[in-house]
C-alpha cells in the first residue's frame, strides 16, 4: 500500500500536506502524532472514507485505488469510540462483514467462534454490545475487523478510551493477534510508548506533515529533526538552547552555566555554528550521579509525578525546565532544591532550525 503526494483539505482547512508514504506490508505501521496531527485523516484516506485533494492511493499490487469506493476495498477499521452495531448481538456483529461478503453459513460460524475464542468473547456471544464493559466492546470491534480478514486493518487510537490496566492488557495482546495474519496493520496513536511497545514501523506526523518513517526504535533513537524527536518523546524531550564555546569545549546555557560537551560531539560540528539546541530524553536524567563522570544541572523541584513504577521529576532553573524519568517512587516536595545528572554522550544536538547535527550512539 502506498500513498503518493496525497493531501487532504476540507473547506479552508488543510488536514494533510502533500505526503508520500509506503506502508510496510504485513507489519504493524504505527502513525504517531499529537491530536490533530493528521493521523485520523490519513487513516480515513487509506480506508477510502476521504477523497484526497491531490495525489494517488496505490494498493499492494500497485493498482490505483484512489477512486475505488469504500465498499469495494478490502479494509477493516476500529475506532477509538467503541463502535458496534447496537441492534446486533455480539455474534451478529462479528459475523456481519462475512454475511455481507456472502461467506457460507458454516464457515461464518467457524470463523466467528474461533475469533471469539481468541478475543475471550465466547461467553458473551449472545449479548448486545451495550451490555458489555468497555474493554469487551472494543474487543468485539476488533473481532469484527479481524474476522473480515481484510488486506488492510486500520486502528484509530483503539485503546485510548479504556482504563489504564485494560489498555496495558490489550496492548500486550495486539501484536500477537496481528502476527498470525497476512494483513497490513495501520495503528494510530498519540502515545510514543505505545509505538515502541507495538514495534513495527513508525510514521511520525507533525501538524499534517510526515516528518519521519522507519522501524520504531530507529526513529526513536535517530530522529532527523527536533520536531521528530519531540513528537516521539513522552515525557517531553528536554530542550536546552545553548551557545557553543569551542575553545573550552562546552555549551553555555542561557544563564551562562557551562556544560562540558564530549569531544566526539564537538568534532562533528562545523566551527561556524554558534547557537544550538541540545535535546535530552527524560530517562537519561538521574537523581544520583552514576559511576561515569556526569554533567549536572541544579534546580528546584516543580513536581514529582509518580506513575507507579516510575517518577517524573520536573525541575526548573532560570528559564529552563526539565523533566527526569527515574525508576521507583520518589516523593519530593515542591520547591525543594535538586540536582539532575546526565551523561554528555546522551545529548542530541540540533541546529537552530531544528536539523540534527549530532545523535548519541546506541
Amino acid at each position, binding site marked *: 500500500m502506498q500513498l503518493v503526494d496525497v493531501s487532504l483539505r476540507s473547506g479552508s482547512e488543510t488536514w494533510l500536506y502533500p505526503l508520500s508514504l509506503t506502508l510496510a506490508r504485513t507489519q504493524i505501521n504505527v502513525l504517531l502524532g499529537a491530536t490533530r496531527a493528521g493521523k485520523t485523516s490519513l487513516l480515513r484516506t487509506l480506508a477510502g472514507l476521504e477523497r484526497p485533494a491531490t495525489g494517488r492511493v496505490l494498493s499492494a499490487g500497485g493498482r490505483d485505488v484512489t477512486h475505488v469506493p469504500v465498499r469495494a476495498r478490502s479494509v477493516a477499521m476500529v475506532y477509538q469510540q467503541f463502535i458496534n452495531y447496537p441492534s446486533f448481538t455480539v455474534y451478529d456483529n462479528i459475523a456481519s462483514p462475512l454475511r455481507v461478503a456472502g461467506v457460507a453459513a458454516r464457515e461464518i460460524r467457524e470463523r466467528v467462534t474461533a475469533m471469539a475464542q481468541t478475543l475471550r468473547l465466547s461467553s458473551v456471544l449472545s449479548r448486545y454490545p451495550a451490555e458489555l464493559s468497555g474493554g469487551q466492546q472494543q474487543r468485539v470491534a476488533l473481532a469484527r475487523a479481524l474476522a473480515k480478514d481484510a488486506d488492510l486493518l486500520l486502528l484509530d487510537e483503539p485503546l485510548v478510551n479504556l482504563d489504564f490496566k485494560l489498555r496495558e492488557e490489550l496492548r500486550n495482546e495486539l501484536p500477537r493477534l496481528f502476527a498470525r495474519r497476512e494483513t497490513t496493520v495501520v495503528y494510530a496513536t498519540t502515545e510514543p510508548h505505545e509505538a515502541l511497545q507495538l514495534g513495527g514501523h513508525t510514521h511520525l506526523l507533525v501538524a499534517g506533515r510526515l516528518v519521519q518513517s522507519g522501524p520504531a526504535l530507529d526513529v526513536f533513537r535517530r530522529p532527523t529533526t527536533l520536531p521528530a524527536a519531540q513528537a516521539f518523546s513522552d515525557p517531553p524531550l528536554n530542550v536546552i538552547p545553548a551557545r557553543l564555546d569551542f575553545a573550552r569545549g562546552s555549551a553555555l546555557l542561557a544563564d551562562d552555566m557551562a556544560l562540558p560537551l564530549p569531544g566526539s560531539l564537538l568534532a562533528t560540528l562545523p566551527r561556524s555554528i554558534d547557537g544550538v539546541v541540545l535535546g535530552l530524553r527524560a530517562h537519561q536524567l538521574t537523581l544520583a550521579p552514576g559511576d561515569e563522570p556526569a554533567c549536572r544541572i541544579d534546580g528546584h523541584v516543580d513536581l514529582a509525578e509518580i506513575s507507579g513504577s516510575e517518577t517524573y521529576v520536573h525541575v526548573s532553573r532560570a528559564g529552563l525546565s526539565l523533566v527526569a*524519568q527515574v525508576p521507583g517512587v520518589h516523593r519530593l516536595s515542591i520547591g525543594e532544591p535538586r540536582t539532575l545528572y546526565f551523561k554528555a554522550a546522551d545529548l542530541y544536538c540540533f541546529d537552530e532550525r531544528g536539523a540534527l547535527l549530532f545523535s548519541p550512539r546506541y
Partner: protein
Amino acid sequence: MNEAPCSFHRGIDGMAQIQLIDLGHSYESRPASSRPARAHEADPWALKPMTMSWNDGGAYALLGPSGCGKTTLLNIISGLLQPTRGRILFDERDVTALPPESRNIAQVFQFPIVYDTMTVFENLAFPLRNRGWHAADIEQRVREISAILDLDADLGRRARGLSAEAKQKISLGRGLVRPDVAAVLFDEPLTVIDPHLKWLLRRKLKQIHQQLRLSLIYVTHDQTEALTFADRVVVMTHGEIVQVGTAEELFEVPEHRFVGEFIGSPGMNFLECAWDGNSARIEGIVIRTVSAMRPARQDSLAIGIRPEYVQIVPGPGPNCVPVHIVSVRDVGVSTMVALEVAGRSAWAKLRAPCALSASERTFAHFPPERCALYAGDRRVA
C-alpha cells in the same frame, strides 16, 4: 472482616477529622442501565462495611478501577448518598443524616460545572454569598483563590465562553474558596484536561494543598494522579478497601495482590509456589523472601516480585529459577522481557539493553529482599 488495615493515625498532630464507623452501602434495586454483569455481581455490597478515620489537613486519594465503589464512598462522604449502614462523623459530629449543604464540605465534579450566566468572579463568590459573607471578605478571598489558579485575568468575563480547562479551574476554585470546609472532595477532576496540561494542574493542586492546608479527598482511577497528589492513597476494589498507604508503600509493600497488580506498569509478578514447612519453593528451588511469618494457609501461595527487580542471570544460584524467554522487546527506555516460569508468565523490566533472544532458556534471579510471600490475596508479614 477487612477493617484491620484501614484504620490509622498520623502521630499527634490533631484528632481525626473524618471518621467512617462500620460504614457500608448496598443498592437494593439496581437501575436498569447498571454496569455490565461482572463475576462479583452476586455481592450485595457496593461498599463493604468499613471503619477508618482521616486526618485534618491531609491529602487523600481513593484509587481503583471503575465500579470499585470509590465514587459511592465519595458520595456518601459528601452526603449525596445515604449509606445503608454505619455512621459518618466530621469532627466527632454525626453527619450521617445531613444533606450535603449542611455538611460543610465542597466538591469538584468530573466535568466542569459553572454557572453560565455569572461572571468568573460571581462563580467563585457564589458559595460565600450563599453563606452570608461580607462583600469585602468575599472580594479578598476570591482574589486570593483566583490568583492561585491564574484566573485573575478572566474574573470579569462570563463563564460560558471559556475553555473546558478554564471552566474546570472555576469549578476547582468554587471548591476551594471556602476556608472553613471539613474537606474538599474531587471526583476525577482532570478528566477533561488535555493530557499535556495535566501535570500543570496536578502541580497546582499540590501547591494549593500546601498553601491552604485543606483536607482533600481525591477520587480517581488513574494511578499517576492518585500517587502524585496524595499523602495517603486508599486503594479500593470490589467495594472493599484493600490498602491505605503512601506511594512508596503501595509500590514496595503491596499488602494485597490487587495492589501489586494495579500499581506499576506492568504490575507485580505473582508466581505460584509450594510450601515445604519452612520455606517457599518454585520448581523445588527455595525462594527466600522478606516474609518472616509462616503463611496461615498452605494453598494458593505465591511469590510476588516487581518486574523491575527481576534479574536475568546466565546460571543457577540461590533464589534463581530456570526460565524460558518468550519475547524480548526493546522499548527505548527499557527492555521488556516476557518470561515463562514454571508454566506461568512473568515480566522482567530491564533498564539496560541486553543480549537475550526469544525462546532462550536461562535463569532469573529474584533478590530475596524484593520478594514477598502471598497467601491467598494477602501479603504474609
